[in-house]
């Protein structure tokens, strides 16, 4: 038998969660091996992508000096679409042009490479193009390492951090968790459309490194629970749409059809006109929310990031939750190591406790009812956008009709679509889900 190398910790995956865990542990002097199946860190990773500074600042305070950042976000547009129009809100503020901006657009392939560079600098060993095929266990069932798809591919460790992304195949195969269900996962498709910087600046009213985010919902998802987005990068825009897999399966609508529809929308088409599609990507998002979070720790293992369903679909936050959970996992393990504790479930329970105390679990818990409400009430994505856009049109069109009559017509349209009882119940459902 060949000799297996032993590490203090093995991290599976080099996305935001894995990188954060590996970085945190390596800095604390742990002997860390990180295993990534992609050709390089970031090769397999897809995101919108918005980077929330706060979570990264807690790991790399001066990240702005070296990270590949596209634009910082100074304006957020929220649109409700029907086929011809949208009604929405904008928030734009010069206060976002601050010394240390709060949100950035990024291109993940570049960002993840940079992030991985920081992990290597901290002393972790990072190997790519290697797939973890299973977990090694001792006689008592404790996880003691991983098996990979390479010759002599077994490596052992005191603890394994599963940050293998939304599919969470390693944990599922090992029976540490249930398999994903179609209702817990959304499918997002996205294109990166190249446009010269000056064109983007002019079309979105930007200068320098300023950027705009558009989040949209409504007829673009063809009656399914989901949203669409458009983000400005330096010399490209990222545009995409995502819906629950269960809805795609039921409706038999193809994801790229939705994206083409969104791109052809009269409010979107002029923004991307003349652009050249440079990249096409699809990825799953864990949108099951709080109730879909699996067991987070056990004897010799913890799970973080997308693999742990750490995504806030309502606020479009995911990578920051991944970074936060990865960091907390790393801190928990490093602290246990420093005290010489064994990496048992009772030691690693501290990870779950720390997550519960953080904004992460508080936010996910707050919206725990929303996935079901949105899934069971598709009219939030169909009727309301149409009613709202029609209401806006009725009120704005000057045509000799008295304003009071217009208001009556608008109220009437809401009542006839949803009924008084329906309206009241929708308000109740949403307010309860939001509480």
């Amino acid at each position: 038998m060949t000799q297996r190398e032993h590490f203090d910790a093995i991290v599976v995956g080099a996305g935001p969660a894995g990188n954060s865990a590996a970085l945190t542990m390596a800095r604390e002097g742990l002997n860390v091996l990180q295993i990534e199946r992609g050709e390089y860190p970031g090769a397999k990773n897809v995101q919108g992508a918005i980077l929330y500074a706060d979570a990264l600042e807690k790991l790399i305070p001066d990240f702005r000096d070296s990270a590949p950042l596209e634009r910082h976000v100074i304006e957020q547009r929220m649109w409700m679409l029907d086929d011809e129009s949208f009604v929405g809100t904008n928030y734009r503020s010069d206060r976002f042009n601050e010394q240390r901006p709060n949100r950035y657009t990024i291109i993940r392939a570049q960002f993840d490479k940079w992030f991985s560079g920081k992990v290597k600098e901290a002393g972790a060993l990072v190997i790519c193009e290697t797939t973890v095929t299973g977990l090694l266990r001792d006689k008592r069932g404790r996880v003691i390492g991983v098996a990979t798809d390479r010759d002599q591919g077994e490596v052992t460790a005191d603890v394994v951090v599963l940050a293998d992304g939304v599919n969470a195949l390693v944990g599922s195969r090992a029976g540490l968790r249930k398999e994903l269900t179609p209702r817990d996962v959304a499918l997002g498709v996205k294109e990166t459309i190249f446009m010269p910087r000056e064109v983007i600046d002019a079309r979105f009213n930007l200068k320098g490194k300023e950027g705009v985010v558009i989040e949209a919902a409504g007829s673009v998802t063809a009656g399914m629970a989901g949203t669409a987005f458009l983000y400005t990068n330096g010399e490209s825009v990222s545009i995409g749409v995502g819906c629950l897999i269960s809805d795609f399966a039921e409706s038999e609508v193809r994801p790229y059809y939705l994206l083409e529809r969104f791109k052809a929308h009269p409010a979107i088409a002029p923004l991307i006109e003349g652009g050249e599609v440079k990249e096409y990507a699809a990825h799953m998002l864990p949108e099951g929310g709080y109730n879909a979070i699996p067991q987070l720790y056990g004897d010799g293992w913890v799970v973080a990031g997308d693999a742990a369903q750490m995504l806030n679909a309502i606020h479009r936050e995911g990578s920051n939750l991944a970074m936060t959970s990865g960091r907390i996992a790393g801190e928990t393990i490093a602290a246990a190591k420093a005290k010489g504790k064994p990496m048992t479930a009772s030691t690693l329970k501290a990870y779950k406790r720390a997550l519960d105390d953080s904004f992460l679990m508080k936010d996910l818990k707050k919206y725990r009812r929303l996935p079901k409400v949105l899934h069971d009430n598709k009219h939030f994505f169909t009727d309301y956008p149409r009613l709202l856009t029609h209401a806006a049109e009725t009120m704005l069109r000057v045509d000799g009709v008295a304003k009071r009559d217009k208001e009556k017509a608008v109220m009437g349209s809401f009542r006839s679509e949803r009924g008084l009882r329906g309206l009241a119940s929708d308000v109740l459902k949403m307010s309860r889900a939001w509480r």
Partner: protein
Amino acid sequence: MSQGLNMVVCIKQVPDSAQIRVHPVTNTIMRQGVPTIINPYDLYALEAALALRDKMGGTVTVLTMGPPMASTALRKALGHGADRAILLSDRFFAGADTLATSYALTAAIRKVGETTPVDIVFTGKQTIDGDTAQVGPGIARRMELNQLTYVSAIPAIDREAGEITVHRRAEGGVQVLKTKLPCLITMLEATNELRRGSMPDMLRAERADIETWNAEAAGVEDIGKCGMKGSPTKVSKVFAPQPRAEKAAMIEGDTAQAKALSALDVLTTADPKLIQVIARQTAAA
């Protein structure tokens, strides 16, 4: 038992040409964000060397010239099982054309050979960014090595006689060539399949300190023959060719046979001689 082979594989880190874009406005190549890879042709050279090492024993040293980031390519080669990696990096080497590159690589290969004489120098057929196929032959000429280009297989090495037999792809056939070692081989594409390194190989590669040689360490005698200074080639202009506006024709028809006949019609209209060729082949069949 005879001693193993001392082999040097020259590789180059290149931008992944499949992902290079030309800026639509300025018509310049956009390098930002384009991933770098090992020149794909060099991987056949690497595998050929590794296979010979497995059979005959010896060592495989990978050598590249480039900026510090080129060490990524060397590390990758170590992960595939190469024994040693040397990065030739010096600001004097920057901006080199094929003449200056082969000069610097020759110096480094000679340096490697000071401890144990080098038996075989491997390169890929050509690079995907320059496409000149000049560096390999350039090294052979400077080192006065027997030169075997476009090699598709290495069926035999006779260590006692110091002879190597190779298959060389030539127009219209395969030449079987036998020559004396030491030699330089440029490997043809699709002649082997690069192995995946083992887990110990990967760990060793990640931990490896890549030896970095500057001009002095590589034993370069005349710095004037290196880099921009030693390069007579000058790039005067880079431009994107105009895309041709040729439309694809749709072949219509109700049945498969009707479509096939319709396609045949289009082809024979474009090239009337084609019908005779088809008739001849049908008769032969």
